[in-house]
């Protein structure tokens, strides 16, 4: 609260400065101008700053949203209304001898509420459906990669390829079934590979929302899976540049990272720029060095917005992301014999004892560019929004090859995507409706420089999407429903395996429907319940239908099947949340039925090649069921302490063969003790967090489903301590974080490097931040 008051004062001050030049004494005039400021839902908007020029008059709206100027002379004035969280409003007013009464409606700038239909009903910070990482959470660990930021969200696991490469998995689903929306635009990259980390910098967003229950209908792909939203928040009004800079050093891998953020909001123009740089060398497992696991990341983004006087605004967003990622040298396997000898080793092959920052093959080089325009225009009880975005994603993967070919990528893919969306939101009586149209054109091409037949073929697709969602608050709770239709096609050109090589063409139909229904009810002021149901189908992805080639990491051949059918999914989730005295709780249970679920299945026989025998994995379909539960329980101990426990339980089954689904996350239980204290001398606002995370052994599997049995259970301790030195306005924020504090030796089931090596040992990160 005090912070808001300070912000308000700063605003008044800035505003006063802005107007002081035009301020002249107005004497002898008696006219009045009064008005009422409301928001989209007709709520009174208090604390809005109302300026009137010429004259430099200034008022602040009261709790009822009303304001009044008096002593005005008749004439033409410009009225401006500025309020945090709302689009600034400008209008011209004719002040006459008759007192005028204005009625002004502001539209929100807080995109979270309008972007995410499912989220809309959830004003709680962490509902069972949407879990939100705030800007504060993101800046608590600025050096963490996008995926690492998400790891602490219950229900989210990471599929890893060592410590540097991770991709999120929500409720057991990842890759083609998990879409990421970056500022309303579908993130376009090589989603299909398990070792393809999202090319995103978490700090380019101000918050990340994970929708776990039933995905939002604005997300293309109609997969009915979960989705992750990177969102922007409104920039606080400030006439001067505000910013933040942070530096972090991590002991394991001797990582250095530098981050910067600058923003400015002059009322009609807003600017925001951020940049991050990260460098890490070889990591260290408790017993040995993790040779060639270093990484290098750099990213920058720029946001510019212009607010027009009629309340509409135009936004330009540019972002660049680049990374070079090393993969453990001992994890590059040429055939089954190599793999089996690697399994028998304590320490991976090619382990060097000396530390190095150098990144050699096997490695990945990725680059991602985004340019985006958004136009937003509010109108009576509604708004219109249009988006165009272009994305370019380049992925180079380097293997160890003969005769100097190590520097020629073994896989090189260029993906470009055009994204168009127009969306209308309109309130009709008690109903809140959203109608959107999308067109997405995607091209993904291989570069023949590799000298290797591509793993996935070239393809070009055009996808049309139309969705409608609606919300209806009533006495028996909030009812949400919506549907989405997609149509379009994909042209695919594969290179056949016969000699001489020939080109085979395919065309896939991308038509898919999805439907959603939700009900939310506050039982009383402190307890709530929600039920969500969703159905959707998904056309098999390019890799599932057409991939063909060798996967070096696991020494296996992967083969797609062009005859795969659509996957159908039905998901139901139920959640309870609330507070009771010192307790807070959030319990969510879900069941996800998938018919013709696409998965990789090992074939019985090995394939003989000149490099030896290889297991063959082929994409197949079955009927699957994933059930699970995410639980959270908090207990407040006195004023400063909170105990928080969380658990994620998940189980996947193949209903057709009565067998477990492979690579489902094991049970995870987390216990945490948090302390938020008052200042002790120079140590201001100290915060302490001690967390123990226990990951069970995955016991729900069958012999033959995996190359080696799942690793045993492990528990990790994490300690985090942060405080401030100096004043609130001009101080340093320090944070010390110790991961794997007991230097536990462990391997994680979802980490592909578990076949070859232990995971990272203890890592202490010191992070210092300055806000200005």
């Amino acid at each position: 609260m005090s912070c808001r008051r300070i912000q308000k004062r700063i605003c008044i001050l800035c505003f006063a400065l802005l107007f002081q030049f035009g301020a002249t004494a107005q004497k002898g005039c008696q006219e009045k101008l009064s008005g009422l400021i409301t928001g989209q839902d007709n709520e009174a908007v208090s604390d809005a700053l109302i300026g009137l020029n010429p004259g430099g008059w200034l008022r602040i709206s009261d709790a009822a949203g009303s304001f009044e100027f008096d002593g005005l002379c008749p004439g033409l004035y410009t009225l401006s209304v500025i309020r945090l969280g709302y689009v600034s409003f400008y209008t011209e007013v004719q002040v006459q001898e008759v007192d005028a009464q204005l009625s002004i409606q502001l539209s929100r700038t807080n995109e979270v509420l309008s972007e995410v239909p499912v989220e809309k009903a959830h004003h709680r910070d962490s509902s069972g459906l949407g879990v939100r990482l705030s800007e504060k959470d993101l800046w608590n660990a600025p050096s963490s990669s996008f995926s690492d930021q998400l790891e602490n969200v219950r229900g989210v696991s990471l599929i890893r390829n060592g410590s540097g490469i991770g991709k999120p998995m929500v409720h057991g689903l990842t890759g083609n079934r998990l879409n990421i929306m970056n500022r309303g635009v579908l993130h376009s990259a090589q989603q299909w590979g398990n070792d393809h980390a999202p090319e995103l910098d978490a700090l380019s967003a101000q918050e990340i929302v994970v929708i776990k229950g039933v995905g939002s209908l604005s997300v293309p792909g109609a997969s009915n899976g979960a989705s992750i939203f990177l969102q922007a928040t409104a920039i606080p009004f400030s006439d001067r540049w505000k910013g933040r800079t942070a530096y972090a050093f991590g002991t394991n891998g001797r990582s250095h990272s530098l981050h910067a953020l600058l923003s400015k909001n002059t009322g009609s123009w807003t600017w925001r720029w951020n940049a991050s740089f990260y460098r890490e060398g070889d990591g260290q497992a408790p017993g040995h060095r993790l040779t060639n696991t270093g990484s290098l990341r750099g990213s920058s983004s720029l946001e510019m917005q212009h607010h027009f006087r009629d309340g509409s605004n135009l936004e330009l967003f540019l972002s660049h992301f680049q990374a070079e990622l090393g993969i453990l040298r001992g994890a590059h396997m040429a055939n089954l014999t190599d793999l089996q000898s690697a399994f028998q080793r304590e320490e991976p092959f090619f382990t060097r004892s000396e530390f190095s920052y150098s990144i050699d093959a096997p490695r990945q080089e990725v680059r991602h560019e985004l340019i985006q325009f958004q136009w937003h225009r509010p109108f009576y009880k509604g708004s219109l929004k249009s988006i165009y975005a272009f994305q370019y994603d380049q992925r180079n993967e380097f293997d160890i090859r003969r005769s100097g070919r190590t520097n020629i990528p073994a896989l090189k893919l260029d993906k470009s995507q055009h994204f168009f969306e127009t969306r209308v939101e309109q309130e009709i009586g008690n109903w809140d409706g959203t109608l959107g149209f999308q067109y997405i054109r995607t091209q993904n091409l291989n570069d023949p420089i590799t000298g290797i037949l591509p793993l996935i073929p070239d393809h070009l697709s055009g996808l049309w999407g139309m969705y409608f969602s609606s919300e209806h608050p009533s006495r028996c709770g909030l009812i949400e429903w919506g549907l989405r239709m997609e149509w379009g096609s994909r042209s695919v050109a594969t290179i056949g395996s016969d000699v001489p090589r020939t080109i085979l063409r395919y065309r896939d139909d991308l038509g898919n429907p999805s439907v959603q229904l939700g009900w939310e009810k506050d039982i009383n002021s402190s307890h709530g319940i929600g039920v969500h149901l969703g159905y959707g189908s998904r056309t098999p992805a390019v890799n599932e239908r057409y991939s063909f080639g060798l996967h070096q990491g696991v020494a296996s051949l992967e083969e797609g099947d062009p005859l795969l059918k659509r996957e159908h999914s039905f998901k139901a989730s139920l959640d309870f949340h609330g507070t009771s005295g010192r307790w807070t709780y959030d319990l969510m249970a879900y069941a996800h039925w998938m018919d013709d679920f696409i998965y990789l299945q090992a074939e019985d026989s090995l394939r003989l090649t000149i490099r030896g025998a290889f297991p063959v994995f082929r994409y197949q379909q079955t009927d699957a069921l994933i059930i699970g539960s995410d639980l959270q329980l908090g207990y407040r101990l006195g004023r400063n302490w909170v105990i928080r426990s969380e658990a994620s339980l998940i189980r996947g089954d193949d209903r057709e063969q009565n067998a477990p689904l492979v690579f489902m996350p094991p049970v995870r239980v987390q216990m945490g003790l948090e302390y938020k204290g008052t200042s002790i001398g120079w140590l201001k606002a100290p915060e302490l967090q001690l967390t123990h995370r226990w990951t069970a052994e995955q016991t729900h599997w069958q012999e033959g489903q995996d190359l080696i049995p799942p690793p045993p259970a492990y528990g990790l301790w994490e300690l985090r301590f942060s405080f401030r030195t100096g004043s609130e306005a001009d101080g340093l924020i320090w944070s010390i974080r110790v991961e794997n504090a007991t230097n536990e030796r462990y391997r994680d089931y979802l980490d592909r490097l578990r076949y070859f090596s232990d995971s990272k040992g203890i890592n202490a990160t010191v992070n210092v931040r300055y806000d200005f």
Partner: protein
Amino acid sequence: MKRVVFVLLASSALFLSCEDEVNDPLIPNEEEVITTLTYTLTGAGSVHTFTFQDLDGDGGNAPMITVDTITSAVSYNGSLSLLNETESPAGNITAEIFAEAEEHQFFFQSSDPALSVSYSDTDANQQPLGLLSELSASDPGDYSLTITLRHEPDKSASGVSDGDITNAGGETDIEVIFQIHVL
């Protein structure tokens, strides 16, 4: 509003009607591929060849393996030749291996000690390479011989220079098995 919907639907029909085709992909020049391994044994005035040939790579048709019969108590000079027959004329991989001798080593594993292979060549560091070898069988019978080519092995690891693959590490570029009938 109605007009917006109409324009959108009309333009969607326009886009739908022109179904774009992706351009023909360029077929990569697979110069690194090894399609054919020939192990030629010369001794007692005769020449015997053992060939492993897989022209279409990892998928498609099964490889063709040709074997021969040799005589016991004869010392044969063995030589390996590697080809990439996806190219025309065929690429000579033997020369590539020879040029990077320090980074490569062949291993010969026999199913029985009665059939043994020893190295006849070395790299610049006086460590074995295996393009040239010597093979002899002390007793008649049926043997299997596994020929492995490792890229970036640790040639100084224990036993590796004697032809023991156990501690070699590196990646397998070739692993073929020949059945050898010894009279």
